[in-house]
């Protein structure tokens, strides 16, 4: 190795505080406020005391009237607590994109794009000093981007329903913790409003050590978020405020599976005992339909008994419901009630809302618009086979075929919004995709053109940009995050400390640790002469023009980046 070795300090958990200027005075003031004043510092661990958590993982931000705090649809990894002042939550349907000041992700300038022809480093995995985290650390957290103010607030207030919340209230915690997009846009109501921003790692630690806050968040969730959550389903949009609150009051949450499901899945996959029969049941075929299950996040598997096993018909992601057909049928034909026609099983981690049958029949169904009500069931109750299970659910399962269905479900590929799918019967293994990837990533490929194969279809080991990105669980610095605009999962090289937790979490082998090098090609090492590792993966060419280079580089139409959370696209792609 070259004689000159670049030595840097090994990054640590709190090397990059959210606000390096967070003053002790502010911190003391914060600790006087509820709920922190009510917390017992003794219950926190010695390595992560309350004060250190707040100091490193939170900061106080001041907003002016009309300034946007969070935007609906954005992914965010921070929760907020109102320290003083008030904010307004915009209820659905929400503000139009233009008003929210949305912009494209920062693309490279056209010159820098062309400069990749000659400017890419010739050595592999070269990192600039900035990317190595030296000098100014631009840590990811909300607020680092330009602030956006809403124009003509009074008119907006006229045209939109808003709810005002004040000091002591939490918001954004569900989005931060469940890795779901923000449900509502929130903007500042009074000048000088102070918000405490807590990044999700900090919030996670707080919840871990303080049961009161845990309960508090649950109450808040029911009160603030549930209505919005229900409103996001079309079936509840026609309800009045009063009706909705009655529905909300009786709605039950269901959180099934494990927050850290990927580890579980890896174990299951390794032992080879990954079968639908072993998954937790949410609702069972043949049971009395006691309510409609709405999937909030995560995934559930829709199965039907077939021979002596369970056949997967579909997987339901966020926004889908289960049991509505049967309940609507029973409501219209009380003399001829039907049980659940299918079973619903948890895959990994599923967060559901459960609305009981009685509530559906009394409040929701009577006023529901006709087009939202499902077609009546026609087959007799006892002859469940008469409903061709494959024809149902849009017929996608039939077109995809049971082998591939089982493959996609068993391996949890439905999680991907930009899964790299390769049709091996067209792929000439020319590696144009890999080279294109390298050209757009400083001469470094960011995926392995290899992966599990089923029915001639290969799912390559490239980041799928999951709906439920388990890789983000456990990142100590928030280096791995969702891109503000597109929601793609990206890794900030400057704040990645090479802990490998994302690479280990990813069930799809899409993240690879690489040893950083300097421009001369020598490995960068720390004081202990150990290499500096960086997590790397596909970033969907966010900073390039024209979309993912791999897909565009495939000459034979064999490779595509596909949203596998739905089956329609795949079914069509397979039958081109």
């Amino acid at each position, binding site marked *: *190795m070259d004689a000159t070795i670049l030595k840097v300090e090994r990054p640590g958990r709190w090397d990059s505080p959210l606000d390096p200027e967070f003053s002790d005075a502010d911190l003391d003031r914060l600790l006087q406020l509820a709920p922190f004043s009510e917390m017992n510092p003794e219950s926190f661990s010695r390595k992560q005391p309350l004060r250190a958590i707040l100091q490193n993982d939170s900061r106080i931000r001041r907003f002016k009237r009309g300034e946007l705090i969070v935007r609906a649809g954005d992914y965010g990894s921070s929760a907020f607590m109102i320290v003083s002042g008030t904010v307004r939550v915009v209820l659905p349907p929400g503000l139009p994109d233009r008003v929210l000041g949305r912009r494209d992700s920062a693309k490279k300038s056209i010159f820098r794009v062309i400069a990749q022809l000659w400017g890419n480093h010739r*050595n592999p995995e070269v990192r600039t000093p900035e990317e190595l985290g030296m000098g100014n650390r631009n840590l990811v957290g909300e607020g680092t981007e330009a602030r956006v103010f809403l124009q003509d607030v009074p008119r907006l207030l006229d045209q939109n329903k808003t709810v005002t919340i004040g000091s002591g209230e939490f918001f954004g915690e569900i989005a931060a913790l469940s890795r779901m997009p923000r449900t509502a846009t929130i903007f500042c109501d009074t000048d000088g409003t102070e918000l405490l921003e807590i990044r999700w790692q900090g919030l996670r630690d707080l919840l871990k050590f303080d049961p009161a806050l845990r309960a508090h968040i649950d109450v808040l969730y029911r009160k603030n978020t549930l209505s919005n959550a229900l409103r996001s389903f079309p079936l509840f949009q026609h309800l009045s405020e009063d009706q909705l609150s009655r529905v909300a009051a009786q709605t039950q949450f269901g959180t099934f599976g494990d927050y850290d499901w990927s580890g579980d899945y890896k174990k299951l996959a390794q032992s080879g005992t990954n079968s639908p029969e072993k998954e937790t049941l949410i609702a069972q075929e043949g049971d009395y339909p006691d309510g409609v299950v709405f999937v909030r996040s995560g995934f559930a598997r829709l199965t039907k008994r077939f021979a002596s096993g369970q056949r997967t018909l579909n997987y339901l992601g966020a926004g889908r419901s289960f049991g509505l057909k049967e309940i609507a049928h029973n409501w219209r034909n009380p003399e001829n009630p039907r049980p659940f026609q299918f079973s619903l099983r948890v895959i990994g981690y599923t967060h559901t809302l459960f609305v009981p049958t009685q509530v559906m029949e009394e409040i929701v169904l009577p006023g529901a618009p006709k087009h939202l009500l499902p077609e009546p069931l026609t087959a007799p109750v006892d002859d469940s086979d008469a409903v061709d299970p494959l024809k149902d659910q849009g017929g996608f399962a039939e077109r995809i075929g049971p082998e591939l269905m089982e493959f996609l479900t068993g391996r949890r590929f439905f999680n991907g919004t930009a899964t790299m799918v390769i049709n091996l019967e067209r792929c000439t293994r020319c590696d144009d995709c*890999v*080279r294109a990837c390298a050209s757009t990533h400083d001469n*470094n490929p*960011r995926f392995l053109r290899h992966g599990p194969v089923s029915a001639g279809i290969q799912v390559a080991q490239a980041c799928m940009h999951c709906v439920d990105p388990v890789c983000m669980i456990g990142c100590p610095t928030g280096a791995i995050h969702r891109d503000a605009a597109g929601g793609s999962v990206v890794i900030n090289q400057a704040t990645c400390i090479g802990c490998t937790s994302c690479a280990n979490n990813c069930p799809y082998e899409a993240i690879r640790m690489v040893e950083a090098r300097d421009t001369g090609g020598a490995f960068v090492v720390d004081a202990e002469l150990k290499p500096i590792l960086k997590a790397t993966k596909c970033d969907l060419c966010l900073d390039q023009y024209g979309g993912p280079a791999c897909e565009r580089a495939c000459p034979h139409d064999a490779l595509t980046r596909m949203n596998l959370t739905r089956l329609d696209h795949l079914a069509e792609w397979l039958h081109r």
Partner: protein
Amino acid sequence: MAAPLPSPEFDRTRYERPNDAWVCGQACDGKPCRAGPTPGGACRAAPECQPILDKGPGEEKGRWRCTRPKEHGGPCPDGPAPDGCCGCPVVRCAPQRSLRNIRGRFTLAVVTLTIAFLLLAIGGSWRWRFITPRSVSQPHQGEAFARLARDRLAAVNDCGACHEAANTGISGWTQTALDANPGMLSAHQFQQVAAGVIPMTTMDSESCAVCHDRHELHQPNVVQAHSCSVCHTEHRGSKMPAPADLQCAQCHADSAVMKASSKRGRDIPSEQFDPPLPAGLVAFHTPRPPGGRTNLFTGFWQGHPDFGVRTPGLKDPDTLRFNHALHLGDTVRLDGKSLTCAACHVPDSTGAYMARIRYNQQCARCHDLQFDPVHPELKLPHGDVAAVRAKLRGLPVLYTELRATELAAAGRPPRRDELDTFAQQNLARMRQTFGSGESLEKLVLFTADPRQRQPGISAERRAHYAGCAYCHEVILDRERLATITHPVIPDRWLLKGRFDHRKHSQQNCESCHAVRASQTSADINLPSQVSCAVCHRPGGGAPAGCSTCHTDHLLRGN
């Protein structure tokens, strides 16, 4: 088909880098090292770690500690050497080029070889044989032509006779190509070049004219003189093809060019347009149309004007009287048969044209110039009025000789008195029939049919006793009594093109020459262009190109 094989296991924790030009030399052995080769292809192998010296407080020597990262197996069991060197040196390798890199170099090699091959091919003396697209015509090849090119054109070789560039090297070719007008890059002119409006493939006519010195380019009213090579294309094999119709159409189908030609032709005397014929041949000159021959047309079957000889009202001015209809009718018989065209019209020595009609060869068989019905064996000479008169004035001598010949034939010796008596009797008979000798002369010369008044002579024999005026124009001449206008029978009627009777031998003469209805020699019995174009058209079975008739430089001015 058996179930697909499972994918083999391999290290999936590192990216594969098909974009790299070099692969670790140990990779083909299945054990690439961690550092990999440099971008330039050098081995970067180094010890697996760089040991660190741990020295406790007060300790003098310290201990070397292995720093191999856990991703690569963690600290090695044996640890570093006492001198601080890593105990696990990596074997150096010779990095290999990737397949794609080899392809790039292969491509480069092929490109280099191609250039080298071309330099070799066009660098040596065989360059001309290498670049010539197709052989040139027979006259333009061989040592004799090369000598001509050297002697007359100071060309380096035979190619240089026509191609300026061939007298230079490769750079000269390029220069000539760049100087070409229109140039390679004058894209706006491509269409015109392709259309032939701007002739691209033109050779220096001066080069041609050095040998082909007596060739004029075309008619004198041509507004743009073309290079020879515009029409005469070389490199088309050993026989140079005839100029293409397209080339003729470039001007003859272009109204602007024709208009300009017409204008220019106005000031040129019409005889300059007529081509000379070989000595001794008689041409029938048709008057030049007012606008010249500038009709717009694209092919013989498409708008080609009728032949000049077919101009309405045009008559054969010849003074010889001849009735085709009569000769082909039932009246005239030779050896008991009706006449055919071939009885008189026979091919000339080339076979292409018909030989000129001559009295001795064609007419004399029937028209014998007899004058005494009692003695038809007595004949007058043809072609000279003085000779005819002399013969008639010596009639006594004629009869005396006739009787002497008869007696000699009978084997009897001639007796003077017998001869005289014979002559006197006949002279008296002649005088009784025709009057004086003078009147006989006049009858023979000026009367078409001197025997008309003789009722005793049968009709079919009448013509045999025709006078000069029967066929000829006989003019009274005070001095010589009579002058006979010399008949002029043209050998060539169609002067602008070539015709070959041999090639039309399958046709009946009368299918083209409508002579059966022609009763006077003023009729011009040539076929119309339309009747030619029945066959001479695409699909008509006969060639239709311009060069079928308009060959060589028949059209030259003088």
